[in-house]
């Protein structure tokens, strides 16, 4: 009987420590003071796809809206483009970022998340594709940084996403638009 209750207590502790999956947040994916060394005098519209929402019983995901917001924040903060346009009309360039893959951590101590996105930049005027690039990044978080698994997993995903956004915008900044 004692053993049975002990098992239930251990299971309860594991559930509490594991918790429910929480999605990668816009704030967590935001770049801190991004600088790309170039400022294009054009407006841009950002679209994202391939992400998904995180439900309570699901593994961690990145939502399209949060990824879009994080990219837009980085563009605005770095002043890489003159302005970010919402809606379908009125932008000089259109940036499409599609989530291709990210490794969803299931368990482990030090978590490393691999992340790949497909970036394409289109000049709206003539619909020409000025950049198509596969951007691969990773993020690692150790147990000393976050003890709870769900927090560690979220931080690793956010770190991978931040690095991905940084690489993608850096590639755009190297273009001659």
């Amino acid at each position: 009987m004692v053993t049975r209750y002990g098992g239930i207590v251990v299971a309860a502790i594991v559930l509490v420590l594991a918790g429910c999956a929480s999605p990668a947040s816009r704030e967590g994916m935001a770049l801190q003071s991004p600088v790309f060394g170039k400022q294009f005098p054009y407006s841009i519209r950002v679209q994202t796809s391939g992400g998904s929402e995180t439900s309570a019983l699901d593994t961690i995901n990145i939502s399209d809206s949060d990824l879009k917001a994080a990219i837009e924040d980085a563009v605005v903060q770095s002043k890489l483009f003159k302005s970010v346009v919402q809606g379908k009309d009125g932008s000089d360039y259109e940036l499409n970022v599609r989530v291709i893959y990210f490794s969803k951590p299931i368990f482990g101590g030090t978590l490393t998340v691999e992340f790949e996105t497909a970036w394409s930049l289109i000049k709206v005027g003539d619909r020409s594709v000025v950049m198509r690039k596969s951007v691969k990044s990773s993020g690692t978080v150790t147990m000393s940084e976050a003890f709870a698994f769900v927090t560690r997993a979220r931080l690793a995903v956010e770190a991978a996403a931040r690095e991905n956004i940084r690489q993608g915008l850096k590639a755009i900044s190297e273009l001659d638009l």
Partner: protein
Amino acid sequence: MYVKKIPEDGREINLLIADKLRTKGVTVTTGTEPPVSNVDAVVTYIDKWMWDITMYMLELTITIRDPKTDFPIATGNSFHTSLTRLSPKEMVNEVVENIYKGAK
């Protein structure tokens, strides 16, 4: 198309993918070497396995890429935990069918 085998893949998922693509009328070769220059697309995959009484494929992502730039042209993913587990062949079928549905 050329299905690029992951060198560590002892389960030969590349062969399942190649077979499935052949049923779609695609001419497919596969191997670990870099693709020859005349292929129209390179197919890469990432398979993740878990243990629950027996090993099962937890997740499969297949990506069809431009052979020159590595840019992902199309991708598909399947994620099944132990309760809804599928065989590797079924996972491949599901992902490839999803890619073709998305392309229409």
